């Protein structure tokens, strides 16, 4: 991806996450560390992003100007994408969305029931396999969406390996965190909002 393309991807990633560090940015953009550093430097110079060190949360965030810049660039970017086809794939994504949220809630409730937890992890695997088809299709249309499948798969593998935080914890790139982000990305790309759609 050329520098301009990466600059937008990074700006978009910051928009998606609010506050985001270098490591998740690498995963979200698929860039090399050097290219990412260059993009971050460019955007910082432009006054679009800044680095914040909060007591609890640190990373890059949008400035007020950055928000406006992102909105402009998003419109221009969308105009160059196969939006109608992406919308059809998004409908297929939505088929799995309620199931994923219910499964996350179920996981949070069965914290001490080993058999139920085991089943929930298996169910997550099944959902991931089916939803994988959707992300592959989406990735064929817009490269960035293809990366979600790998990130979701990585979270699932960590859960299977015993790191239970990676099912739903908001403090890491858990399955729920990445799915939530993917949904938001679809909405931004398609110019839709949660309120109209009723998907909270």
């Amino acid at each position, binding site marked *: 991806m050329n520098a301009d393309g990466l600059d937008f991807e990074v700006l978009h990633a910051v*928009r*998606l*996450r*609010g*506050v985001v560090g270098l490591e998740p940015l690498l995963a979200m953009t698929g860039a090399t560390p050097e290219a990412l550093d260059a993009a971050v430097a460019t955007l910082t110079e432009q006054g679009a992003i800044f680095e914040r060190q*909060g*007591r*609890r*949360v*640190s990373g890059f965030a949008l400035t007020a100007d950055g928000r406006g810049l992102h909105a402009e660039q998003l419109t221009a970017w969308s105009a160059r994408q196969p939006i109608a086809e992406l919308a*059809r*794939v998004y*409908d*297929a994504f939505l*088929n799995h969305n*309620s*199931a994923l*949220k*219910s499964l*996350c*809630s*179920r996981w*949070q*409730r*069965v*914290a*001490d*029931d*080993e*058999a*139920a937890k*085991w*089943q929930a992890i*298996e169910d997550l695997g*099944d959902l991931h*396999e*089916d939803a*994988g*088809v*959707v992300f592959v*299709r989406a990735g064929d249309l817009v490269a960035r969406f293809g990366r979600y499948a790998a990130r979701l798969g990585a979270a699932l593998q960590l859960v299977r390996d015993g*790191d*239970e*935080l990676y099912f*739903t*914890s*908001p*403090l890491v790139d*858990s399955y*729920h*965190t990445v799915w*939530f*982000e993917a949904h*938001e990305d679809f909405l931004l790309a398609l110019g839709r909002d*949660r*309120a109209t759609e*009723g998907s*909270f």
Partner: protein
Amino acid sequence: MPPAAQNATDVLGLDEADADDVSLLGGKGASLVRMRSLGLPVPPGLVITTPVCGEYLSTGHLPEPVWDAVIEQLGRIEGELGRRLGDAERPLLLSVRSGAPVSMPGMMDTILDIGICDATLPAIAASAGAAFAWETYSRLVRMFGTTVADVPGPAFEVARLEAHADDTQSVAQAYLAAFRTHTGREFPSRPVDQLKEAVEAVFRSWRSPRAERYRTYAGISAELGTAVVIQAMVFGNLDDRSGTGVAFTRDPATGAPGLYGDFLLKAQGEDVVAGEVDPSDLDTFRRQVPAAYDGLLAAVPVLERAYSDMCDIEFTVEQGRFWLLQARRGQRTAHAAVRIALDLVDENLVDLDEAVRRIPPSSLVRIRDAVLDPNAPRTLLGRGLNASPGAATGRVALSAARAEELAEEGHPVILVRPYTSPDDIAGFIAARGIVTAHGGRTSHAAVVARGMDRPAVCGVDGLEFTEGRCTFPGGEIQEGDEIAIDGSTGEIFAGRLPLVAPRDDPRVLALLARCDSSRRIPVLAMGELPSWADAQLSAAGTARCSSPASVEDALDDPDVVRILLDLGDADDPRGLLKHVGATGELEVDLLLLVDDCWPTSVRSLPALPWSGVVAGPQGDWTARLLAAVIEPGGRP
């Protein structure tokens, strides 16, 4: 495998079996038999018992006498309901379920709506609508295809993407085509053929790789076998006196007594699970179909006595008639687990030792949570769903950025938003509690709030937003004003309400005393902690290790003295360290600092031998509970 039992017990109607014979009937079968025997309205059905599993797996065939007995039992079911398999006017649909003697995930679980085929489709469409008929047919083909005929799930996903998603008939036809392509044959059009294949698939799934993986993991014998439960399906979507729902016999979030649940009029179970339409609550159910509600109410004490526990009930109402589909011990939050266990002791359903045994370790610490002072006067601003338990009070922030600003200034914050987006997470972290106008208990806001142990009230009807303020049904609140929320009840109050430790409930004190006598690591009062502890605190994270040398070295060294220090809800851990109590004698090598997120991340604590737990300034309950649940040699 055990030798095949006499034919008489190979196939049993739900009314013929002995509910205590779990090894014969499997867990699911035994539970249905028990409910029938208690006089509860369970749809008629039969069980093909566990010895037949072994017979099938060793020969590859269902014995003829077994299948004949199944057909005979089906005749009785048809008689009871006035519906027949394959009938063009009043078709009988069946569910087929696995059920091993012990909880065994990994097997094929359920196939619903066996009996839909070209012959019966028109009758189903006539009574429940064409869209429902085609959707249900699709669901059967997909479920059957993936679980019985080993068609890969993605094949159906692709078929759906290619069909016109809005045209339910075209989706069904696409699924049928996918089935044909992947199996080389047509989807079975005779209900008895569908049934037989489903039964055989259940038995085969006993040996599925997934089931074998679970058996290895859980140490379960491969000899047990599974039973198959075949049951009539009832229709909740036929008319305005039909519907489907789920009920808990006590509130699964708080443990408060009283029926709690969801009901969807004119819908089947899958519609509720899909979560596409907001279900109504049970009060609405009571008004819509009062006679059926009475049936549910009557079932509650019967089930709680039978299980001596809170239960979750799945039910369907068909044309005014209440049917109970499934009942089991209900899942519940940590808060609820504590309350229900103690209430059951009061009601003489269990004794205190059993009650303590039932409360999972990660739930025990919930008894330390502060609550809104019940004696403080309060003004109700609004109500929503109790999405994440606990109480909080603070200044209103209407954006994540404002929440962080207020928190940096040292104020407790409540984040109030229409709904949640990923870029709100920093606001969640800064806030003590969350309120959203939209979304329910499975919303992202709820999942995130629970994942961080933040109280949350979601789906507040009538909450609106304008620049710089939000309006509740009970009043207008400017950004920066104080409110208090109770995530366990869903209430929101104006102004700051004091948070107090739970009252000295004698039952809770009895529980703590039990913990004190069973713990195996000491609760310590510590003097000044070493200066390196202060210097190495990190800014984020849930359980932070601090040590003078490298943490990795300390973790590996068996002679290192390790203690856990409860930070409670402290915003400023550095300041807190100055408050830790009286003098002690221990030379500490490694500290694990446990902050307010730890109940959800308790399993991420390293498995180490712990030397003690230090009580924090908010009191010693957490320390006493932690000391009781942590094994001296490893994680809880």
